[in-house]
């Protein structure tokens, strides 16, 4: 436990803090993509409100794909990964901690940024609440499932586009449930069921993903 | 036979294009993947044969140098 805490958690946080600009870039990308939509489809408040939740979620998925491979890439190429695997700690626990740090440093800032996005796209308060809740439940799922694909592609020289190809279809159900939760909120309908489904997917991923990530990392070492 | 004539059959009640396009594309796609698998099989067999020939050449070359060396010693 202590090994994971001070060897991985603190290390990754310190590293993330040191590479702040790299972390800020996907967020800037997100902000810019969201800005493009009013310019592209017209600034009518009703239109924006209609497409808003979808736009925010799609932008969040795309921007997360850009930064996803940070999770293991450096560690793989500089050999730190080999040392993790030989540290005597279980690989799934290491992966789980790394995913947690990744979520903290790349999605928590997004959550903080989300009121601004909601303002840009003219979302109502109810819609924003729903959006916030779906982001809170959905983004850890992005990190967990994304980490499996990152683990698989980390050894490839040009894995970037491939990563997106692998992950986008897998994220579609999340997108559907999350945006329809916000849509339901817009119509003043209950959306607890949507949240429950996203929560169930998150729990399933929490149970299964660390094993899959560990396996993927071992495969990439071969 | 549900159709009165061959003409009616080909006409497919006005849906000829969609029906025949569907069946055509299906059989084409199926044929292509079978063809592709067969071509790959042939290519692989050829490659294996080439590889075997290469091994043979290397073995003969090694044999030759060995014989040369022993020949000099004698």
């Amino acid at each position: 436990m202590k090994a994971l805490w001070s060897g991985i958690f603190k290390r990754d946080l310190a590293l993330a803090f040191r590479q702040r600009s790299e972390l800020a870039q996907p967020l800037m990308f997100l902000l810019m993509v969201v800005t493009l939509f009013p310019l592209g489809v017209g600034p009518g408040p009703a239109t924006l409100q209609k497409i808003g939740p979808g736009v925010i979620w799609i932008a969040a998925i795309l921007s997360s794909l850009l930064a996803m491979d940070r999770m293991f890439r450096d560690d793989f190429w500089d050999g730190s990964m080999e040392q993790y695997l030989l540290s005597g700690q279980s690989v799934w626990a290491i992966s789980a901690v790394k995913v947690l740090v990744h979520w903290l440093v790349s999605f928590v800032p997004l959550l903080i940024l989300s009121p601004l996005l909601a303002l840009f796209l003219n979302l109502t308060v109810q819609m924003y609440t729903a959006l916030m809740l779906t982001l809170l439940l959905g983004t850890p799922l992005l990190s967990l499932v994304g980490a499996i694909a990152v683990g698989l592609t980390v050894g490839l020289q040009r894995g970037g586009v491939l990563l997106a190809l692998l992950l986008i279809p897998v994220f579609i159900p999340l997108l559907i449930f999350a945006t329809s939760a916000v849509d339901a909120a817009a119509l003043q309908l209950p959306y607890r069921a949507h949240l429950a489904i996203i929560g169930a997917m998150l729990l399933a991923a929490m149970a299964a993903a660390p094993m899959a990530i560990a396996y993927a990392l071992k495969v990439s070492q071969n | 036979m549900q159709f009165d004539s061959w003409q009616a059959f080909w006409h497919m009640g006005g849906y000829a294009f969609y029906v025949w396009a569907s069946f055509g594309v299906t059989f084409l796609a199926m044929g292509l993947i079978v063809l592709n698998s067969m071509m790959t099989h042939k290519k692989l067999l050829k490659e294996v044969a080439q590889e075997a020939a290469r091994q043979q050449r290397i073995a003969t070359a090694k044999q030759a140098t060995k014989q040369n060396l022993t020949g000099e010693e004698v």
Partner: protein
Amino acid sequence: MWKWLHPYAKPERAYQLCSTLQPYFFWPAVLCILVGSVWGLAFAPQDYQQGDSFRIIYIHVPSAILSMSTYVAMAVAALVGIVWQWRTAFMAMIAMAPVGAVVTFIALFTGAAWGKPMWGTWWVWDARLTSELILLFLYLGVMSLYGAFEDKQQAGKAAGVMALVGVVNVPIIHYSVEWWNTLHQGATISKFDKPSIAPEMLWPLLIALLGFALFIAAVTVMRMKNEIIRREYHRPWVKEMVQSAKETNHAV
């Protein structure tokens, strides 16, 4: 209980098995598909609503059903490979991917061609078509991941993990898309107890379904043979086999 299966985990035995099975899959597949198509096209009665356009059902429904099941079969092979570390299981998995993708493509194309006369447009974001499209993406993802690795051993394992991630998602995708769009015609075949289509229409459909399944199996064993040779070409038995094949060819 499963001991008898183990010899087939050896590539050499697996290759022989594939060679034996290939004709038994291929020719019945051709026969069934021909019978199903001819029966469906010429002898099955017309649908009173959709006229003759419904005859596309004889390829659309089998391909739609089997595109999903092929993906599941692929994931089962991947699971076997990962859990029992059978190399041949990964080979079987990767042999299924292209044929699965082709069948998915067929389902998509025929769905669109059926949709045009029915809905008046080639593409509708209907639940079945949408989930077929996503399924095609999943197939392509597995195939491109496999292709990206130079070491095919590693590639098989990586693609296997991705197939498993995908198969967990297939039902979620299916139901989420269905729920997202309820404009859909409802599956007609699984309602055996209260058939919504006449038996004269159903029989050719079942024959075509069997034909498609056999076709997928036939292409899978063909491609699996290729995969085995590709990975085992340095083993003596492959060389011997090629040699003897050549000799018989010369004899002919």
